[in-house]
């Protein structure tokens, strides 16, 4: 089963940390990423650029309306995501708990819909 792990973070939370802590965290993130790659469970993922420099698109009555943001006022924003292929949602949650981001912020674990099905 594939799961997407969505990392939510208060805007600027990482930058607000003292440099020493940021460096230690970077090393931890690298180690976590290596561990997950080596286990053969990581499919892919990425950190996301600053939210306010992104765009939000809505098409209404056929007319696209594009606004800047999400804005920095939002309490928590999507800061990154990764996709894993593992046994169960329990294992996916266990993986999320190994990510240092889960200690500081929050990670949402969601199953990815798939195309296999059993006739009933």
């Amino acid at each position, binding site marked *: 089963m594939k799961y997407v792990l969505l990392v939510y973070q208060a805007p600027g939370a990482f930058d607000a940390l003292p440099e020493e802590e940021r460096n230690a965290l970077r090393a931890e993130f690298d180690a976590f990423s290596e561990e997950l790659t080596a286990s*053969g469970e990581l499919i892919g993922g990425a950190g996301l650029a600053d939210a306010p420099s992104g765009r939000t698109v809505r098409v209404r009555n056929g007319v696209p309306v594009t606004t800047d943001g999400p804005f920095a006022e939002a309490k928590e924003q999507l800061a990154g995501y990764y996709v894993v292929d593992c046994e169960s949602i329990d294992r996916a949650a266990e993986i999320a708990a190994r990510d240092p981001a889960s200690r500081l912020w929050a990670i949402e674990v969601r199953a990815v819909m798939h195309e296999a099905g*059993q006739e009933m």
Partner: protein
Amino acid sequence: MTTDTGVEDLLRGLAPQVLGVLIRRHGRFDACEDAVQEALLAAAVQWRAEGVPESPRGWLITVASRRLADAVRSDAARRRREDAAATLEPEDAAAAPAPGDESPAEEDDTLTLLLLCCHPALSPASQLALTLRAVGGLTTAEIAHAFLVPEATMAQRISRAKQRIKAAGARFEIPADAERTERLRVVLHVLYLMFNEGYTASSGLQLQRAELTREAIRLTRAVRERLPDDGEVAGLLALMLLTDARRPARTGPDGALIPLAEQDRRRWDADAIRDGIALITATLARGPVGPYQLQAAIAAVHAEAARAEDTDWKQIVALYTLLERFTPNPMVTLNHAVAVAMVHGPRAGLDLLSTLDGDERLAEHHRLDAVRAHLLEMAGDVAAARAAYRTAARRTTSRPERRYLEARAARLAVRESAAR
């Protein structure tokens, strides 16, 4: 002139034999497996272009041995570079491979390899991947393709699996009796999972994943050749044949799932059904019975009914009762409840289902809601059935299943409003 499929089939059949020879000579399952994989890739290219050599097996052994020697040498060179003081010699330097081994295999290594690849230290996903590569002779790219993951992910999974086997100190030999029985059970389970991975693929992905079904049947046949008297091996093979026979009828042209009761049975594969029924009938007569045999027997009863309404549900209920005794498991109970409903009416089925309420293994599982919805519909409780279909649709992670369940709910909504 050999066709591409001919070369592929030949290579897949030879893969475990060649790997077995190499491991016997050199030990080191992980390095030998890499070397064989490289030899298979080389053969796939060269044989298609230049034709199959006179002794394909000898060719593969020679090439794989050479690759192994190269790997050992470069490994040793790297170690020497890394540690100037070291005077390490490659472990296998003395065991230079003999030129092309032309003698037929004195020992058949397929089963030994299967038992090794399905080592209990590995997760089921790793057991599957490693089995397909080391025993099935599939390339990492083919396996990744079948499991819909990037090749890099699959390569990591396989390499981690081999490290684990090494760390567990597993040996290339058939384990002693008690352990052998237990390990064979794992092998059969892995083959069963492999089959299901392929079988449950929806139409859009069937071509991609049909490989898994084909391999599962091929490998189960190979196990049966080695263990012709094992009833459960035969039972599993019969179950696969009888289930796979329904494949052409299980999805509509748009990929929608068609339930067993509504399938066009003329589209079932009659040959596979005949083989499956003959196999399970002969096997059950011999005993002792086991869970795969019982599941195959249930599939056979379905296969024997020309129309859904001809199904011998009484016999199916009896078989499920027996199956539950072997493998008490909520999924079996779900199917049992459907059969009970067909014999004794929907309320009896719902009563059996209610024994599963609060079962942690099924908490939030869409199948419980789906079966309940089906039985409620049979009982004429339209509103409750619709609600249960909707809950099931929300809970499944499968898009074809969700489409099917939503369609059932929608159909009931129409019926309900028409009745008003």
